[in-house]
């Protein structure tokens, strides 16, 4: 049983949990997906294991990938390619990308050229959800991807899809519950632990991950921790390239309770369950359009993202927003401006910091966060 897996263990470059899964399920395939969002239900229904790959963090030196992607490009694009060039993507039979940003889009096709033996595909997620035609389009796009996945895996019927959707619904519902618990009682749910737990979902089969979430929920609920005099913050901007775990711990140690965040947002993209009646692909499509959380890589002008951020702050009774932005992350840099304007208009304090997934010294960041916390505490 993979029950004892930790995130640290799973994210090692030789992907031990994936290797074991492959051995335990001979002939079945593994499909990787680039952050932020992927239709994992489709991959699962086709009998394959969906794995979220968010770069190689600080585990891999970029030695070859920067010949292909030069300066001013975020690290995750380069470490993802580097993993491929160094042979670490050998366990994966496919790689799914989607319309999150220009760099990631180009990465998809560079991967396609350099790894012709992999199934590499690009999912076009609609950026005009106000159009009545969008749902039909996305359902057909899912159908297209599903057809490709079926070639690698097993044939999929509606029942299988509904079954997969139900499993992922359960998983997402637990994540929402955990987030709610943390927001209500942050002293019981340290983010550095919750983070690793959620990210495990990138690697484990959904059934196992759900079991682990259930156990963790009980564990967190039963904790007896004292509420510290920390400020409550929302972390925004870490939806793709992930901050080092040390940085997350540092934020908490500096006197913050992270009461909401957009880490690994693709895991809990939907605000409520995807319906399991009717056409499952249409249900998934409509859910993406109408019940997914806001993010810098999703565009829905019916309700601007900056309103979503203010809502998030108020809903979680947060004191401030910490923008943790990956260096060179263009979508996050852009959105910072309207976010900042709305926060200033509504009187919500905020701090903006940059990180790289491969950083391992944090002195300057620590100082900035501590100063910020102090400025809020000693008002």
């Amino acid at each position, binding site marked *: 049983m993979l029950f004892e897996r930790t995130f640290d263990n799973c994210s090692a470059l030789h992907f031990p949990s994936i290797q074991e899964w492959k051995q335990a399920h001979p002939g079945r395939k593994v499909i990787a997906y680039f952050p932020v969002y992927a239709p994992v239900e489709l991959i699962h229904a086709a009998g394959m294991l969906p794995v979220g790959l968010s770069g190689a963090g600080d585990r891999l030196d970029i030695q070859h990938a920067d010949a292909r992607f030069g300066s001013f490009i975020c690290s995750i694009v380069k470490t993802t390619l580097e993993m491929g060039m160094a042979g670490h993507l050998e366990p994966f039979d496919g790689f799914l990308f989607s319309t999150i*940003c220009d760099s990631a889009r180009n990465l998809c096709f560079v991967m396609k050229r350099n790894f012709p033996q992999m199934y590499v595909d690009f999912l076009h997620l609609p950026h005009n959800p106000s159009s009545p035609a969008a749902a039909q389009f996305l359902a057909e796009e899912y159908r297209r991807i599903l057809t490709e996945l079926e070639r690698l895996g097993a044939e999929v019927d509606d029942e299988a899809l509904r079954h997969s959707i139900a499993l992922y619904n359960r998983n997402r519902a637990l994540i929402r519950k955990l987030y709610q618990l943390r927001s209500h009682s942050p002293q019981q749910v340290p983010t550095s632990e919750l983070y690793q737990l959620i990210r495990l979902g990138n690697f484990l089969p959904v059934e196992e991950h759900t079991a682990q979430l259930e156990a963790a929920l009980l564990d967190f609920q039963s904790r007896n921790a004292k509420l510290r005099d920390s400020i409550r913050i929302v972390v925004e901007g870490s939806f793709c390239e992930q901050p080092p775990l040390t940085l997350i711990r540092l934020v908490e140690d500096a006197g913050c309770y992270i009461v909401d965040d957009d880490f690994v947002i693709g895991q809990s993209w939907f605000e409520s369950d995807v319906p399991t009646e009717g056409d499952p692909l249409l249900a998934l499509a409509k859910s993406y359009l109408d019940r997914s959380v806001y993010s810098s890589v999703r565009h829905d002008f019916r309700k601007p993202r900056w309103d979503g951020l203010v809502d998030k702050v108020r809903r979680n009774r947060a004191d401030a927003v910490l923008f943790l932005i990956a260096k060179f992350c263009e979508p996050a840099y*852009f959105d910072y401006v*309207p976010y900042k304007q709305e926060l200033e208009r509504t009187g919500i304090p905020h701090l903006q910091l940059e990180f790289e997934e491969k950083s391992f010294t944090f002195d300057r960041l620590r100082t900035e966060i501590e100063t910020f916390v102090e400025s809020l505490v000693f008002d």
Partner: protein
Amino acid sequence: MKTTTNEKKEYRGSIHQLQKDLMLAWYDQLDQAATTGIPPTVSMMISGNCVELLEGFGAVPLYPEINALQLAIRHQSLDPILAAEDLGYAADNCAYVKADIGCILKGITPTGGKLPTPTLILCNFVGCNTYLKWFEHLAKLQQAPLYVIDVPFMRAEEPSRSDIEYVVKQLQETVKKLEQLTGRKFDYDRFRQAVACSSRTEELWSQIKHLARRSPSPFDAYFDAITLMGPLYVYRARPEGVEFFEAALAELQAKADARKGVYEQEQFRLVMEGPPPYPYFRTFRDMFAKWQACAVASTYSTVGGLWEFGFRHDPKNPFESVAMHMIAQNVTNRNFLQRYEQIRRYVEEWNADGVIIHFVKSCRLFSAGQGDMRDYFTKQLGVPTLYIESDLEDPRYFAEAQTKNRIDAFFEALEHSKGTAAVRS
């Protein structure tokens, strides 16, 4: 000591003046619209733009990108960029966006005339995520209505039926929206005529592009093509556009028939990839002129549309062909590997000696992964390729001496290999 023969070249023909007049007339219309509210104006992105649709309303396009590049060419882009950075935009955000937003903040326009708040901000999303952000921010800043035409990306070799239907439906929604906003009924016949006009303009433009296959090429398919591009996006669907390109074709055809090239002796033929450094347009051109190197093809001149391989708008299927143009026939909505293919075709069919890849810091759509492109051309195809770096809009990111050095080294090597080839033959 020998003196240089490299005096400042005059690169322009008479069409240059014609082009200037047309663009100024357009800015006049915009100024008028700013004052009177008539005609209605629609902001669009250049890439895969659907200017034909606007003709159905007598609306005039507003192109923030043209504003941005005009500023850069006139060496006025730094101030607005700084203003935008003061607002919070990052050093690494696209400088086009910063320049445009900075202009609005500071009330600057490229010609000094007024620019209207558009009737509709129409974001034709064709593969550039920055476009989406840019127009959303504009909508917030200018308090103007926004509609996003979500154009499916070219992730397969051809667009699917579903892709085309999705875009057609959104075009029809755009029509409804414009009817509401302008109070005018969509004139379907005018729209169809506009599409017919476009197909004529495109035919002329394609012929012009094909003239560059001649040796010597009668024009530079990068620097001169960029100059000719303005009327292509503003007037493509109007009779003035057809007239302009008829004149342009006639002039260039005459040059080609007289075997007149851009230089006294065309020494090198190049394919250029990437936008130019607009703040140093002239200086950059001189670096190639020194070597009598002429661009015979470029990818940047196909952002608005890719017509040299046969695509034309079809007035018998106006909505569908507009959708097709937006999905498949512009360089930005085509995937990275399709761009390799496009350049490869240029190298072969336009008979080029090498490829220049100009990495621009602002534009990840063009630039992210150009190292892999370089790898493809040098290692896989054995095509001499030069990689240079700067920015398209921000004057702070141009290292003149280093850029010149790389260009000189490239041509020294190319010259040597041509020389030994000549000796051998």
